[in-house]
């Protein structure tokens, strides 16, 4: 197995799917000629290899980029477009939410919209709240969209390949910090199914539900607890929509304790959905109150100590777990 960063894994997925299916094209701001040319980045080299017909640099026009995807998908292609940073999801949100997600339903099932919107989130780079804002809960609250948030390079590759082959609109959210954390990626071709959580670590004492960059952090916290004899089970949901309720519920039924961790702001974050499901279906198994470890209810600040305060860290998770074991 190769050791790749998530950007490289995404790059492989794009490359393989573009080779496999001539209907796949990519478009976005700076995805062909970019201001940074690094092999760690998702679209590195694709312009050279696939040419300007299939690798489309666009103007700074997020609504048009998303509209391009909706229309091209309606007409039978498989667009994979990029929204540079997640706060700019707002600018594409009419096209994504009112069109990509709804037009199939509005057609009475006659049309399909096989498109992928890749969105990068940039917390941890000191860029501030107009570049860093986790909006996955918005997308997950929208029927008609699938929402994928991989935590490892291997998952990113397998899930993106599935997303591109999926006949439904998929929002694929990449945390940019993960571009630079190498992990093993299988050599042979594989697909990772959308809608299946993965237990990234088995444990019997407490369940931590996590996704994206919070999974690695949870694994490190779990290692610490293990030394104390506390076994933390880590459920990486991988896709928020559809959500693999069964895996979450099974884990909570086993451990009786639940912590949900996400980088997004606390109030209205997707931890709420997970809590509600557990409270509906596994209340009797619960031995302790819920704990949420999340970004606080503030915009992401720019100054390093402030930004560090924003992003949940191992200590936050460790003390949350301690409170309920």
């Amino acid at each position, binding site marked *: 197995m190769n050791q790749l960063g998530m950007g490289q894994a995404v790059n492989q997925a794009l490359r393989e799917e573009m080779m496999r299916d001539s209907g796949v*094209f990519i478009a976005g701001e700076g995805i062909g000629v970019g201001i940074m040319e690094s092999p760690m980045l998702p679209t590195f080299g694709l312009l050279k290899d696939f040419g300007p*017909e299939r690798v*489309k640099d*666009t*103007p700074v*026009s*997020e*609504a*048009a980029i*998303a*509209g*391009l*995807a*909706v*229309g*091209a*998908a*309606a*007409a*039978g*292609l498989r*667009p994979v477009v990029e929204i540079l940073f997640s706060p700019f999801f707002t600018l594409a949100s*009419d*096209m994504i939410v*009112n*069109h990509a997600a709804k*037009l*199939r*339903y*509005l*057609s*009475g*099932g*006659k*049309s*399909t919209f096989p498109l992928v919107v890749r969105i990068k989130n940039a917390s941890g780079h000191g860029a501030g709240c107009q570049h860093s804002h986790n909006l996955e809960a918005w997308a997950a609250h929208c*029927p*008609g969209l*699938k929402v994928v948030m991989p935590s490892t390079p291997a998952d990113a590759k397998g899930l993106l390949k*599935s997303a591109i*082959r*999926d*006949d*439904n609109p998929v929002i694929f959210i990449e945390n940019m910090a993960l571009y630079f954390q190498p992990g093993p990626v299988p050599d042979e071709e594989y*697909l990772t*199914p*959308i809608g299946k959580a993965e237990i990234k670590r088995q444990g019997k004492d407490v369940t931590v539900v996590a996704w994206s960059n919070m999974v690695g952090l949870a694994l490190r916290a779990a290692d610490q607890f293990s030394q104390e004899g506390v076994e933390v089970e880590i459920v990486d949901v991988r896709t928020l929509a559809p959500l693999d309720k069964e895996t979450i519920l099974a884990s909570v039924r086993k451990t009786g304790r639940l912590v949900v961790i996400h980088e997004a702001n606390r109030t209205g974050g997707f931890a709420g959905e997970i809590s509600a499901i557990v409270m509906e279906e596994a209340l009797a198994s619960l031995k302790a109150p819920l704990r949420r470890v999340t970004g606080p209810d503030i915009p992401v600040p720019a100054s390093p100590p402030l930004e560090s305060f924003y992003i949940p860290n191992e200590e936050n998770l460790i003390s949350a777990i301690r409170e309920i074991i």
Partner: protein
Amino acid sequence: MQITKEKKIEMLRSMLLSRQFEDKLTELCKIEGKIPGMMILCTGQEAVGSGVCAALAPEDIIISNHRSHNHLLARGADPNALMAEIYGKRTGCNKGKSGTLHLAVPEVNALCTTTVVGGGPPIAVGTAFAQQYRKEESVTVCFFGDGAADEGSFHEALNLASLWRLPVIFVCENNLYAGAQRYEEHTKVKDIADRAIAYAMPGEVVDGNDVTAVYRAACKAREIAVSEKGPTLIECKTYRCHGHGEADLQLYQPKDEIAAWVEKCPIDKLRDEALSEGLISNDAYEEMNRKMNEIVENAVRFAEESPFPSPEEALEDVFVSSRIS
């Protein structure tokens, strides 16, 4: 450009069908509880859709908006399925999911209809991109109103279409009103067609009540598009003879303005021309009119006799069961 007799008869027929269809809806709307939702008609504007669609080939795509009946009928959509959809019936073209506001008829390449004002242009960029990508000799037509030309999405879409020389015809139906707002109260530019300058794209003003003029402009724009010269913006100057919707009392539309435009009825105009050119006899015209009426009456009967969907059918058609392989 010489217009054939057949083409003129086709356009006359298409405008008549649209008028009859909508006159019937005006009647039905007066019956409390008969037609759900808002009823938005294009009475008096028929020359636009009928003229443009007469210039299209079957493989061409249209993207429509809230004022869609004429576009869809001119494109050859089944009146029964449209009427049933307007009634909210299961036999409707979208199984009752869309109702009158987002009627989509992919069978006739009326791929997407959106009631989000300005939603069409970015999607048209996408369908036209697919046509270009596959090197088809086909075009996309996007219909939208004068009000829609104030939305940001219009701007992004026209810029991108022009940049990539996409085969799209942007057809602005300037009916002098956007909701209750007169044209001069929502923009200061004299002609929407002038906005084409902002994208180095050809722009043309056409008498939107003269179906042959519309047809000619569309033919020219189509020719430009398929010869890889890119998009055209056509502004059709016309008038909304009814209110924004049938519930609108038109208090803000001057009575004499309405009367003057009713005088300029595009159907009467073409009929008189056809009669004087000897393309059709008075009897044949009346027969055509009667025929259209029959089609509409049949559609109403079909819609009335069709069942409503059962409530749980609401749960269908959100997602495609994926073809992941």
